[in-house]
């Protein structure tokens, strides 16, 4: 099989989960391994809200999303990942609404055979998300 065909086949087999959810994201203890024992590397990125945002103390960040377009842009990014990295499964979850300092606004989990593609795909995902996905944040003060 040509490399290109093999890559396209593997890419089309990559599992993808995209969720845009209201409120802080709960990080599951169970990382949810796909079955069959192919996954040797799971890279999980937690994006958490910092207290200092743009030079100003906040109680949290309020996220808004242009939801239908955000989902489409995330799907495109996952397509890009499937084309570039031999990854088994990607789960990306972004929060909307008020996320207090310390809580999770973005959870990205990449499952791959080996660590190199898992780390690289996860970094690629976050970098691309920050370039194109229509989501915005606004600091809010405590009550």
């Amino acid at each position, binding site marked *: 099989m040509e490399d290109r065909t093999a890559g396209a086949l593997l890419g089309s087999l990559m599992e993808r989960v995209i969720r845009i959810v209201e409120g802080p994201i709960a990080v599951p203890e169970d990382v949810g391994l796909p079955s069959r024992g192919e996954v040797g590397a799971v890279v999980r990125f937690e994006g958490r809200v910092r207290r200092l945002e743009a030079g100003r103390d906040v109680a949290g960040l309020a996220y808004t999303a*242009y939801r239908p377009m*955000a989902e489409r842009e995330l799907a495109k990014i996952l397509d890009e990942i499937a084309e570039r990295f031999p990854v088994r499964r990607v789960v990306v979850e972004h929060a909307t609404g008020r996320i207090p300092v310390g809580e999770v606004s973005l959870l990205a989990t990449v499952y791959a055979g080996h660590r190199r593609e898992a780390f690289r795909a996860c970094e690629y995902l976050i970098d691309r998300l920050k*370039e194109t*996905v*229509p*989501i*915005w*944040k606004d600091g809010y003060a405590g009550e």
Partner: protein
Amino acid sequence: MGLEARRVGSGAGGAARPPGGAPSAGTITIRLFSRAQDAVGEESLRWEIADGETVASLLDRLAAAHPTLAPLRASLLVAVNYEYAGGERPLEAGDEVALIPPVQGG
């Protein structure tokens, strides 16, 4: 902000219609986000477009009707029906146009 709540306005009086009495080619919805929403004071507008309306001509009319948008214009991206679009993109009745200030996800 409620996810489903939308206030739909028509913008400054008279400016929501095609200029110079040109016949209307239908209406579009304009979604405003972040600082664009702050500048205009609406989440959503419904405007009539003329034949040959493009993203660029629409932005011109929006900036004329809402001068507070003008300083943002250089940093705005525009989406038509959930896809990024350039200024030359023609608009049709029923399109959903979104003004996309610099994104801040993650």
